[in-house]
């Protein structure tokens, strides 16, 4: 961006370009730049370096969240569902999440509730077998909610601490598929009141403005508790999560950083914002 430049239209345009090319979107970018201009007037910031820092701080402030989900220690089993549109990385992410919990000694049950897509069951099973994690499977074509119901029964009976539910990818524009997810939630809540305790939207970092539509639709249907942002090891900045946090207050909790089982981290707003400007 070029520090120590004049605080003029060119400088603001340059900042605007960084935000837009990071997939923040026009609306969020305009709001943020306008807020920045107000701050510049109020606090009489002079150097471009100060303004740059003010922008970074504002972006970090937007992304920081207070964890509102139920305390994991108070619910046993703690149920987490992974939802999202097709191909974003749900199955891979659930395997990573399970592995992470297993490393900290937890008893985890995986549920292969994608009963639709070709080899979805096999895909999750292979991850589970490789890392010795118990998985509940079903026949392709069986009812997704029924699989989850049976899995919760098993979890209660055998005292699992975590139940992680993999669901089929679906476009949020398909109302029958969104209904299927709502039914999944109702059925799980019948077995374990309060389940699912965490509903993570798995979002691909290469996603553009449609990410907002996805977050909106999945949130309206299910009450999302967080986002698992995948493929941030690619060149996309994933800035859409800033617009989502700003507009819907849904926080990013985890990040996928590759295709291997250990490739996940907790979301770090500091690192994320610094990366936008690298």
């Amino acid at each position, binding site marked *: 961006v070029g520090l120590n430049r004049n605080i003029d239209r060119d400088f603001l345009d340059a900042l605007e*370009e960084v935000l*837009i*090319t*990071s*997939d923040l*979107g*026009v*609306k969020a970018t305009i709001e943020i730049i306008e807020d920045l201009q107000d701050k510049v007037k109020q606090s009489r910031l002079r150097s471009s370096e100060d303004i740059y820092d003010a922008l970074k701080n504002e972006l970090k402030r937007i992304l920081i969240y207070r964890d509102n989900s139920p305390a994991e220690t108070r619910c046993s089993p703690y149920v987490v569902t992974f939802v999202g*549109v*097709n*191909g*974003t*990385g749900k199955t891979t992410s659930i395997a990573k999440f399970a592995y992470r919990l297993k490393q900290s000694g937890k008893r985890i049950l995986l549920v292969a509730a994608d009963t639709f*897509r*070709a*080899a979805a069951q*096999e*895909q999750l*099973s*292979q*991850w589970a077998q*490789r890392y010795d994690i118990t998985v509940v499977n079903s026949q392709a074509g069986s009812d997704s909610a029924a699989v989850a119901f049976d899995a919760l029964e098993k979890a209660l009976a055998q005292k699992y601490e975590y139940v992680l539910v993999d669901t089929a990818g679906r*476009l*949020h*524009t398909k109302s029958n598929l969104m209904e299927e997810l709502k039914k999944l939630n109702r059925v799980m809540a019948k077995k374990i009141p309060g389940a699912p305790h965490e509903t993570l939207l798995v979002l*691909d970092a*290469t*996603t*553009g*403005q*449609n*990410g907002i*539509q996805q977050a909106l639709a999945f949130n309206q249907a299910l009450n999302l508790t967080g986002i698992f942002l995948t*493929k941030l*090891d*690619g*060149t*996309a*900045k994933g800035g*859409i999560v800033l617009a989502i946090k700003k507009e819907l207050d849904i926080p990013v909790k985890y990040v996928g950083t590759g*295709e291997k089982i250990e490739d996940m981290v907790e979301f770090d707003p500091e690192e994320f914002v610094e990366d936008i400007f690298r």
Partner: protein
Amino acid sequence: QLTNKLDQIFRNLTNRGKLTPANIHETLREIRRVLLEADVNYKVAKDFISQVEAEALGEEVISSITPGQKVIKIVHSKLVELLGGSAVSFDIPRREPSKIMLVGLQGSGKTTLAGKLALYLKGKNWSPVLVAADIYRPAAGEQLNILGKSISIPTVVFEPGEKPLETCLRVAREAPRRGWDILIMDTAGRLQIDTVMMAELKQLKNKLTPEKIILVVDSMTGQEAVAVASEFEKELGVDGFALTKLDGDARGGAALSLRAITMKPILFAGVGEKLSQLEPFYPDRMASRILG
């Protein structure tokens, strides 16, 4: 909505019929905003706007009763032109066997497209064979096998320990004897910046010389479509694109970016998870979708 916004701008003309620099600036900003909201890349949108600038503010617009509508018509037709004009025919030379290689980022829809293409080509009197050359993703071979079985198309999956190149060469060698005249090779998803994985594709291309290399792109891709397309084109060479998941509500501005950067054709549109849900890519429909 764009028509109303532009009409607003033109209605506020202070000079009788003559557009001021401010009006011009505002009009172009409004169109640029629409493109950016549709995920058209920042630089591509900028270039596009400068391309339409002269025409969008020429005499025809200024003297029109509905200048807003006129501008949109110009922008729309410029978009259609840049997107390829009309649907492109997918012609593959017969090479005994011919070969199509599908490449792209993780999760873009390659394996599903392989099945779709197989069904499509079978309908055009080809005898396709599906080749599962993704040895990394768990159950990738199983996935393609199940798809192949569902449409009665032969599918060859890599043997344990076999490399993608070996599998593809083996199938290509066997093809004439087995009566297969076209190979559809499904490869693993990869990042365009992964030099090792890109090298694997280059080797596949060199040894197999596929007639078509198709970059499969998710229609909800944002600004990064430019970087992905240009790197695949630069490192590997791309013959065309397939844009997937268009049955969703992504505006699909990535399509414009792909065309602007490479000028290669967008051959197909994926419009669902079923193998029958493949359509030719229609530039005029896409232009309307981008403009919202």
